């Protein structure tokens, strides 16, 4: 095979286009996604553009201009894309270029050239420039021109906003292969680490605590396919609010010493904010952090330090808000916190240890919480979206535009999902009352997209003889499996007075152990396998077709014949 016959390998990247920071990633030949550092060595590139003199600054350089040159520095523009001026919340842009009305959308007026009138840049134009800089950085790093990209957006991005984003990207010559949801990209970044080609069915909560907003999403992962079950957004909760508590803390400290409030002066405030952000980041890694700002206000320098405990106390309210958001999204998905198998913390603010620990406390110990503070193997939460986008980009790099269009068409994405879990009844281990054991082995969890197929092997019977395969729809129920109270009392001793008893009761309540077990809800069908030898394995395959027709195949492993039956689907 000569090289000319082979299709040219396309260079595609993933872009996480955030309101505060963006990142770019590519998938190497080994199939692992890597986040690209820009020319300044940043992997988190601030989504900021600044115009000073005749120069355009981007990223960290531009961000530093928030202090010196706030009016010509554009920040936090992503969420303004495709929105009318009346609909945008300009709070975040207080300390940067102010959004102004322009045609039907939003624009910024900045002094782009020294000897010209201020230029009015629409949000689309700013986005185009931002993506161009990102794409250039990626091209410099990879040494190849970029053929296409996958961009992540929040789940509440409208169709028109997506369209504008794709156009803005095309404006700088970068083709957008696909625009995907941030939480799903984060999920994909973790899913790509697993070696297995048959991922386990999980229900996953993705909490994305970003710079200016917090999003939570419950996603059902079934056979490697993802379905968004519920999303919640808080547009006034994010890293900025965490910075703000430190700003307030240090401002008070400064006022105590010097009787001046640095928050009253715009420049001082910008300086303090920038430093507090760094302090916050340091506190995620170490137990205490220094802050030192030359000439903060009134020509006075400021040096101080803060420890993590203090910071945790200050930010408690914000952490509570995140926890509230998590609880509400799970409720919105009509689920129990116990049903969540995995929690993924995304977004830069997720580095905060207290936040991760609080969320971990919310869930049972079996639920894995993926964040740097809770698991050592976790990925960098700020890079998840870019990694996921890069993985998706590499998957569809060789697709034609038409292929992508067809594959993402609602006719293909809108799929019937099972409303009930589907499984086979199993025997409980002997000698137990069986209250706390699963009655059903679940093949297909609820919210599984059909068509779907699962196979499992069981031990036929422990005694030999006929085996009944009973296919049922299952439900989950909470069962109190708190160890019996008498045992406790024995430990505590007999001579306890009433107060102690009360305490004990409270303790018991605290330690109440709840377990979710599967119960039979409805029996769908039964199949009989005759004369199965003792200890023989029985293989059962359930196949639900697109029209909900259920095909059951049961056979003895290594044996002959078997039972095959079909249950017609319900009328839709």
């Amino acid at each position, binding site marked *: 095979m*000569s090289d000319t016959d082979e299709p040219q390998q396309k260079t595609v990247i993933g872009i996480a286009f955030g309101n505060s920071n963006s990142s770019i990633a590519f998938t190497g030949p080994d199939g692992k996604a890597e986040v690209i550092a820009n020319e300044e060595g940043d992997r988190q590139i601030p989504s900021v553009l600044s115009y000073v003199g005749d120069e355009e600054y981007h990223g960290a350089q531009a961000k530093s201009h928030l202090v010196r040159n706030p009016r010509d520095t554009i920040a936090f523009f992503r969420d303004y894309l495709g929105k009318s001026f009346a609909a945008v919340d300009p709070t975040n842009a207080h300390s940067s270029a102010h959004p102004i009305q322009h045609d039907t959308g939003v624009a910024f007026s900045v002094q782009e050239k020294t000897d010209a009138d201020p230029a009015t840049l629409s949000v689309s134009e700013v986005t185009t420039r931002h993506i161009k800089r990102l794409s250039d950085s990626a091209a410099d790093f990879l040494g190849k021109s970029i053929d296409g990209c996958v961009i992540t957006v929040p789940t509440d991005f409208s169709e028109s906003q997506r369209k504008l984003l794709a156009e803005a990207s095309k404006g700088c010559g970068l083709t957008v292969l696909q625009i995907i949801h941030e939480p799903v990209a984060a999920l994909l970044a973790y899913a790509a680490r697993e070696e297995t080609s048959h991922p386990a069915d999980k229900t996953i909560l993705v909490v994305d605590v970003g710079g200016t907003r917090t999003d939570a999403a419950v996603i059902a992962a079934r056979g490697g396919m993802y379905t968004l079950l519920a999303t919640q957004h808080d547009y006034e909760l994010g890293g900025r609010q965490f910075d703000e508590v430190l700003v307030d803390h240090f401002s008070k400290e400064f006022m105590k010493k010097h009787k001046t409030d640095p928050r009253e002066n715009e420049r001082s405030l910008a300086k303090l904010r920038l430093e507090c952000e760094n302090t916050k980041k340091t506190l995620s890694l170490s137990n205490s952090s220094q802050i030192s700002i030359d000439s903060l206000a009134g020509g006075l320098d400021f040096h101080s330090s803060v420890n993590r405990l203090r910071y945790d106390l200050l930010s408690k309210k914000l952490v509570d808000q995140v926890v509230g958001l998590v609880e509400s999204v799970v409720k919105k998905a009509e689920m129990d916190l116990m049903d969540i198998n995995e929690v993924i913390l995304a977004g830069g603010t997720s580095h905060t240890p207290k936040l991760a620990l609080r969320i971990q406390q919310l869930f049972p110990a079996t639920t894995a919480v993926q964040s740097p503070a809770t698991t050592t193997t976790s990925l960098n939460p700020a890079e998840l979206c870019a990694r996921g986008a890069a993985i998706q980009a590499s998957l569809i790099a060789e697709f034609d535009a038409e292929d992508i269009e067809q594959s993402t068409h609602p006719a293909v994405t809108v799929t*019937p*999902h099972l409303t009930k879990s589907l499984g086979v009844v199993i025997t409980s281990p002997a000698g137990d009352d069986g209250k706390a054991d699963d009655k059903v082995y679940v093949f297909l969890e609820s919210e599984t997209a059909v068509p779907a197929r699962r196979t499992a092997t069981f031990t036929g019977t422990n005694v030999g003889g006929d085996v009944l395969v009973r296919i049922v729809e299952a439900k989950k129920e909470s069962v109190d499996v708190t160890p019996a109270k008498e045992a406790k009392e024995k430990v505590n001793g007999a001579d306890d007075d009433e107060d102690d008893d009360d305490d004990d009761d409270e303790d018991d309540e605290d330690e109440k152990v709840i377990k979710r077990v599967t119960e039979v809800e409805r029996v769908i069908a039964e199949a009989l396998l005759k004369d199965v030898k003792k200890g023989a394995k029985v293989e059962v395959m359930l196949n639900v077709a697109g029209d909900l027709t259920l095909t059951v195949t049961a056979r003895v492993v290594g044996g002959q014949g078997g039972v095959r039956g079909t249950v017609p689907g319900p009328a839709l």
Partner: protein
Amino acid sequence: MNVVATAHTLLAPEAEWSHDGAFHIIEQLSKPIHRNLEPVGPHYLAHARRKRHHRTFSEDDRIVAAQQAKNVEDADSGEISEPEDPLLLSRDPKDWKNQDHYAVLGLSKYRWKATDEQIKKAHRKKVLKHHPDKKAAAGGIDDDNFFKCIQKAMEILTDPIKRRQYDSVDEFADVEPPSRKAKGNIYKLWNPVFDSEGRFSKKKPVPRFGDDKSTKPNVEEFYNFWYNFDSWRTFEYLDEDVPDDNENRDQKRHVERKNKAARAKRKTEDTARLRKIVDDALAMDVRLQKFRKEERLQKDAKKIAREAEEKRLAEEAKKKAEEDAKRKEEEEAAAKASKADAKKAKEAAKNAAKKNKRVLRKGAEDANYFHPDGAAPPDVINNVLADVELLITKLDNEELDVVAKKLAGLKVADDVKGVLVDSIHSTIGKGSAKESDYKILLQ
């Protein structure tokens, strides 16, 4: 397909099985809910593939497996597919200078075009096949000669300098130029020759010989390029082995000198050879003749056009001259005619004036010279006639005509006199005469 092995035990039937057959349906599945799948991830793409092509799981598994098997086959075929010549397999590795390195690696159809990637791949495959350990394991004789050949070929082809030296003398890649008398399509004959020679060019891209549609600038550029060909071809590969240092130094220097001279000689020969090839091509190039012919035709066409133009101009000039002469003649004739007419008119006017004057005089005479009764005395006649004569001299021909017409038919003396007095007044009014000039008519 993924089978999950569980430790669970299935039920034993509680009661006697009372249904027909081994499968018994009790209820249907609950109604599904339609949700949007996230179009992300490898498993979704597989789902989309199945849904778009309406495949079931087992069909899709089969098709994908077949596809993969084909891909693997494709990757395996190619370089290694060349049959190995038994003569090549029994080569002596010591004679590596005369070895065809590309053939050893199974790349003889690529030769200098083979990429580093191809060479690497081909080498790996050959090593896997011919490794001495493998042969020994297969129970064959312990013969690593061909393996050594493979390693030598790899050594030369992966080193850019050595590869160039080998490519320079790789006569298998040469294409024999056609003889001058060769018949047939010259483009088919010459294009491969120049494509092959072009591999030595330092300048890229190398212009192609082209075909009969090539334009004149293209062909000219081609010959310019080849007459100024800048070649990297070297002949070190054919050097005689230089003896080691510790042997005779003079001998060593002698060999080195000889090598250098041989290289220079070969280079000169090569340049001359190439020159001859280009000369031959030029001589055989029908396009040049075609261009010359076209040029001549063009020139001729220009000449013919120019002559035609001149002829046309001459004709035009002649026609113009003729027209001018004709017009002049006509003008002269017209002038003559008008002159004659004028003369006639003048004479007519003169006659008319004479007649009119007569009318005036006759008018005075008929009116008895305005004398009341009886024959007018001579002095009155004299004065009246003098006045009429004066009036006649003061009137021009047209006024004379008018006055004559007024007088015509008038018999009454006063009327005649009135007409005459009126005209006298008009002449006085014009200032051509004075009242005092008239002697009698105004009294």
